[in-house]
């Protein structure tokens, strides 16, 4: 059944491509810029984002563009480096004359670009997670954000932990922007949930062994370990946790939400608890979940096209692209009006949340961006 659906969809896409390219060609393209960390230390963000943005562009162009205008997408690799990002942003604005910018991928590079887009008056939809990107609104007139803040994930996790009767938690985090942001929220919100932080360990993104940190934590009498990182260390910590036979549960950040991590951990991931984005558990989402159609569509398209597992991060680019497309469709190629549209966007259903923005909230995310899951039999199982 599914396969036939796919084939039909592909045939449809091809047909629309032929028609659309003929249709869209005669109108001036809409130029959109994108700044993604395709290579470098944050490529786990930038690569799926780039892939997704290109895919969405192709989809829109294949279906005849926006009001007949095709999208022209300019993607530059920031390597997660502020210097490169600044130059690339200037290039997008001055050379490519884009109507709006999607990205940058990381919080740091997003912050570096904020003053540039504000000055040039170019709307930007950042794919960084930090709360500072979207606030204070007075200083972020042209800046919007699609990624749920870490506070949402932390709150969901603490809520669950509280129900499990956990009183003392040990934090481990990677010493990058991703880890430090999560670590900050973990420390800040713990008292609200009556949780005491008994250890706060960090490690580098290329750490090869974390048994020393785990051993130190064992000596603190913690009830649970929370690891906030992305990439290889979160697999290493999972394996080390199993190897050391540590009897307390291991919680991970939403970055763990990839089947690949379960596979790399080679069985050690059984029992790991983490908040994940809906895209990770797309197949199990009930149909009544309002995100279900978006998430399932995105997952199907991405995995078909790129032959790899869809990631939560690519979903940010999906949301950003479609928000921009909606704006362009409604107001046309006018930067100021695109900004106004994005600022008052209501009821936009994205991968993680339903967006309801306002002049006082340039993020506009709901509180239910994540779902708690546990690894069971090599797959995710929804908790509660």
């Amino acid at each position, binding site marked *: 059944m599914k396969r036939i659906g796919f084939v039909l969809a592909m045939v449809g896409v091809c047909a629309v491509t032929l028609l659309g390219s003929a249709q869209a060609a005669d109108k001036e393209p809409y130029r959109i810029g994108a700044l993604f960390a395709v290579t470098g230390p944050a490529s786990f963000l930038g690569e799926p984002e780039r892939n997704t943005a290109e895919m969405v562009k192709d989809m829109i162009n294949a279906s005849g563009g926006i009001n007949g205008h095709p999208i022209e997408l300019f993607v530059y690799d920031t390597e997660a480096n502020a210097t490169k990002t600044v130059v690339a942003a200037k290039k997008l604005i001055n050379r490519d004359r884009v109507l709006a910018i999607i990205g940058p991928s990381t919080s740091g590079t997003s912050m570096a670009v904020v003053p540039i887009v504000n000055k040039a008056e170019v709307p930007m939809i950042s794919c960084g997670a930090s709360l500072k990107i979207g606030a204070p609104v007075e200083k972020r007139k042209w800046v919007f954000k699609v990624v749920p803040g870490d506070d949402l994930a932390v709150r969901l996790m603490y809520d669950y932990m509280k129900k499990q009767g956990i009183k003392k938690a040990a934090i481990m985090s990677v*010493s990058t922007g991703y880890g430090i942001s999560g670590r900050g929220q973990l420390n800040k919100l713990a008292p609200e949930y009556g949780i005491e932080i008994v250890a706060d360990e960090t*490690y580098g993104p290329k750490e*090869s062994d974390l048994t020393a940190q785990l051993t130190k934590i064992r000596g603190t009498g913690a009830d649970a370990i929370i690891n906030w990182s992305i990439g290889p260390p979160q697999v290493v910590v999972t394996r080390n946790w199993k190897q050391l036979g540590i009897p307390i549960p291991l919680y991970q950040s939403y970055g763990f939400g990839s089947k690949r991590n379960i596979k790399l951990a080679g069985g050690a991931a059984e029992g790991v608890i983490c908040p994940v984005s809906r895209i990770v558990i797309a197949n199990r989402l009930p149909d009544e979940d309002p995100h279900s159609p978006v998430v399932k569509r995105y997952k199907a398209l991405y995995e078909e096209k790129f032959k790899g597992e869809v990631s939560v991060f690519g979903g940010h680019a999906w949301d950003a692209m479609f928000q921009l497309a909606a704006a362009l469709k409604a107001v046309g190629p006018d930067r100021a009006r695109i900004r106004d549209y994005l600022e008052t966007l209501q009821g936009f259903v994205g991968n993680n949340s339903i967006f309801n923005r306002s002049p006082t909230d340039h993020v506009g995310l709901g509180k239910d961006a994540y779902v708690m899951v546990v690894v069971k039999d090599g797959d995710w199982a929804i908790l509660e």
Partner: protein
Amino acid sequence: MDSISLGSQVVQYIFTGLTVGAIYALVALGFNIIYNVTEVINFAQGEFVVWGGLILAVLAESLGIPLFFSFFISVGLVSLVGTVIYWTGIRPLRQPTILTMIMATIAISIILKGLAMFIWGKDPYAVQPFVEAPPVTLWGAYIQAQTFWVLGISVALVVALTLFYQHTLTGKAMRACADNPGAAGLVGISSGRMILFSFALSAALGAVGGAIITPITLMEYDRGAMLALKGFGAAILGGLGNFYGAVAAGFLLGLLESFATGFISSSYKDAIALIVLLGVLFARPQGLMGSSLQGDE
């Protein structure tokens, strides 16, 4: 609730330090092998480790070739990479000064990293432990089986290298270069062959490091630079060109990091290791590598 006695913690830190230190030691040895013949630090050394691990992952996990064979094929292939590097990147250098050779090795490391990204992508790869076995309990500490492989193979390599340098003709010739660095020069057929051989050997050593550590740590394309830096630190701490120094310094750095994590702060473990390293460097009497002006000849 979980707890662990101080003694068990110490044992755990020792084994963690030794495991990590073994890799530093192997990288440092690789530096020394090339340094002794050419007086050059090959900054692409870390990439050999990465390639060793990644090739092993492909052979053993994706192609399903038995681990034993995969291991040797991987080491052989990386050693070939080392040879190719010498032929294409080092030998064609005109008027090679130490600085241009270092620049060349940095450029080569960039190329190798770029190639690895192209071939394997950006995701990490895993390899199963050499032998599936439960962790060993030692005074309340848990030691994974692979750790013993890492330590055993590292020690075996050091012994083999020592025998090689003392008892084979090639080894003796390379040692002659080491005893009189510079005098052998960078020109001439025989020293050219020695350099070629040193690249192949140090690449093989790096590959072994990558192969034995990947089951513990995973491996991905951009890990090389950090490994090279740590290994460089070990090579310097041990005294450039000194094999036993490199091994001792590698283990020492690994232990320092793991104890600093355990008893001070994991945030500053690298800083602590570096401060110790700098302290040793600054306190080192001038005689060895210091100013020849004040030395006693």
